[in-house]
């Protein structure tokens, strides 16, 4: 399955937007946190997990999705939220803890939820899997052909919730696609020291579903595998697993001293940057004019800049609003 020109531009936009978003966030996050890094200080306090480098996993899958398809994501959610079409202003305001945020500031960066596009995420490893099964079940029971996509890290593939959800999805023939973003590191522990199998896609077979392994963060290969998986799910044929070897340029969380990471690793990864690779393909193979690509990039950046400006200008909630929305 190969993408059309429109799809290529869509994916490029999603990836460029996500990259610029994460790079912008990296700078904003450090506001108020130097010279002494205090996690609770500054414009964006708390934890921050950036996904620069992992954009193809979001774009290559979400290009096949509709707003009524559900996506559950992890503690590293921004690129997926962007690809899914979460309102960028509300999302950024939420991360800034502002009243205009998706949850009025109650959730923050790890708990971005948007019913408009059926996107949610959780900070607990593995807990994206069960709800994706549920969304898939709901689609089946209501006679819709929507699908659910669960994002997980390679570390989550060792969590009980993952195994249970895979079995359940296969057992009930649920329209779910499990996407494992293998960025090699579960904080400081490399996959080789956490996972008994080299390739999580082989686990798929053990759970009664097809598994695909994408070895090199390639947007086009992801597009193909995801297209097939989504088509299979929509046709009522059941779940699939896709494992993508991807990279995270930043640390596990911002402030992570990364003592565990071999020194030149990030540099080597940047040499294979997936956005550059896609751009090259678009120009050389798909014949898309450079001008159009530049325009797409500028538009993406402008949208991100606008979102950050909106977040900055927005007001904080009144402290007492903490007590609202505990119950429905």
């Amino acid at each position: 399955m190969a993408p059309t020109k429109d799809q290529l531009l869509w994916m490029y936009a999603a990836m460029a937007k996500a990259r610029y978003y994460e790079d912008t966030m990296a700078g904003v996050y450090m506001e108020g946190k130097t010279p002494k890094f205090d996690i609770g200080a500054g414009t964006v306090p708390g934890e921050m997990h950036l996904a620069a480098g992992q954009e193809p996993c979001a774009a290559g899958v979400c290009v096949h999705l509709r707003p009524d398809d559900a996506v559950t994501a992890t503690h590293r959610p921004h690129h997926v939220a962007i690809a899914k079409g979460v309102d960028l202003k509300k999302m950024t305001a939420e991360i800034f803890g502002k009243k205009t945020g998706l949850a009025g500031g109650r959730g923050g960066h790890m708990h971005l939820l948007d019913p408009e596009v059926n996107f949610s995420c959780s900070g607990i490893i593995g807990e994206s899997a069960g709800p994706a099964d549920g969304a898939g079940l709901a689609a089946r029971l209501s006679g819709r052909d929507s699908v659910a996509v669960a994002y997980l890290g390679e570390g989550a593939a060792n969590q009980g919730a993952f195994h249970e959800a895979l079995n359940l999805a296969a057992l009930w023939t649920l329209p779910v696609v499990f996407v494992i973003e293998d960025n090699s590191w579960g904080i400081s522990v490399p996959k080789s020291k956490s996972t008994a199998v080299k390739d999580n896609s082989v686990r798929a077979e053990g759970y009664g579903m097809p598994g695909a392994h994408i070895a090199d963060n390639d947007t086009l290969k992801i597009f193909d595998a995801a297209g097939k998986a989504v088509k299979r799910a929509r046709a009522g044929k059941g779940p699939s697993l896709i494992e993508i070897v991807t990279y995270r340029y930043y640390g596990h969380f911002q402030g992570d001293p990364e003592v565990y990471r071999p020194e030149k690793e990030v540099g080597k990864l940047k040499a294979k940057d997936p956005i550059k690779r896609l751009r090259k393909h678009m120009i050389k193979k798909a014949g898309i004019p450079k001008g159009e690509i530049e325009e797409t990039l500028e538009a993406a950046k402008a949208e991100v800049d606008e979102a950050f400006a909106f977040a900055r200008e927005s007001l904080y909630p009144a402290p007492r609003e903490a007590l609202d929305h505990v119950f429905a």
Partner: protein
Amino acid sequence: MDSNRILTVSRAMAEAIGQEMKRDKNVFVMGEDIGAYGGIFGATQGLLEEFGEERVRDTPISETAFIGAGVGAAMSGMRPIVELMFVDFFGVCMDAIYNLAAKNVYFSGGHFKVPMVLMTATGGGYSDAGQHSQTLHATFAHLPGLKVVAPSNAYDAKGLMTSAIRDDGPVLYMFHKGLQGLVWMASPEGAATPVPEESYTIPFGEAKVAREGKDVTIVTLSMMVHRALEAAGALAGEGVEAEVIDLRTLVPLDREAVLSSVAKTGRLVVVDEDYRSFGLTAEILATVVETDPGLLRAAPRRVAYPNIPIPYSRPMEQFALPDAAKIADAVRETLDLKKAA
């Protein structure tokens, strides 16, 4: 060597663990990122270097498996120290804690020992939101079979850890992230303290009087001890002398310390960073009331987290979090004094 050496709580914990590992080859540590990283909150810093991979084991993200394995190892002659990175993660592995670890001594009529320490990070106030900021003292104290300890400072941290490791039953060691002395998270002044170089233990079930006073008793533990001391400092300026009781352990609970203090002061404020209802604060109040309600000269007060998921946004989180100002106001209420403006 003088014991004028100051340690942060995290270093004190790591020192206690290291000394016990040297003393007893059956002690080993496992958990996520406790090896090369030294523990996300510094509890195992330096241990991998000293003891190697066999005894300092990084685990996959498989809490049910490795906590269950901790129970099994403990029942097979080892003395494991297992880290649950954030107490909030208990959801994925609660069975191993409350159905296995907590009950196997009982189920075997005492014939099996389960000498496992489960150490876990608690606490918020730095915008880590609803799944990474909880304290959950009551959740675990409520379950029979589990001892629960929560130090407020480095000296207690080392002594309680040593006692926990030497205990033949399961001990939940709850350390507050904001007390660890991490370079990336501010900690209060009194958290790091002088810590003796040699090994020592602190018995469970013995609260400490962190500050003596005659007008009101403030009972609390962990981070809130420091907030209570701050409040007491402010109140002293108004002529109110507050006594601060640092519980140090929840199970066993030093009810006597609470009762003798309240017998002296007649007024009680209980402070807990955990959710207000159905928890620690209620337990302390019940202890006083069911012993002798006449001890109280005024209605007691609780300062605790409201019954809401912990909000992310700073103004909302700070609104909800117990702090020195709220504690001082509660004290004033028991004395019928006007609250601060």
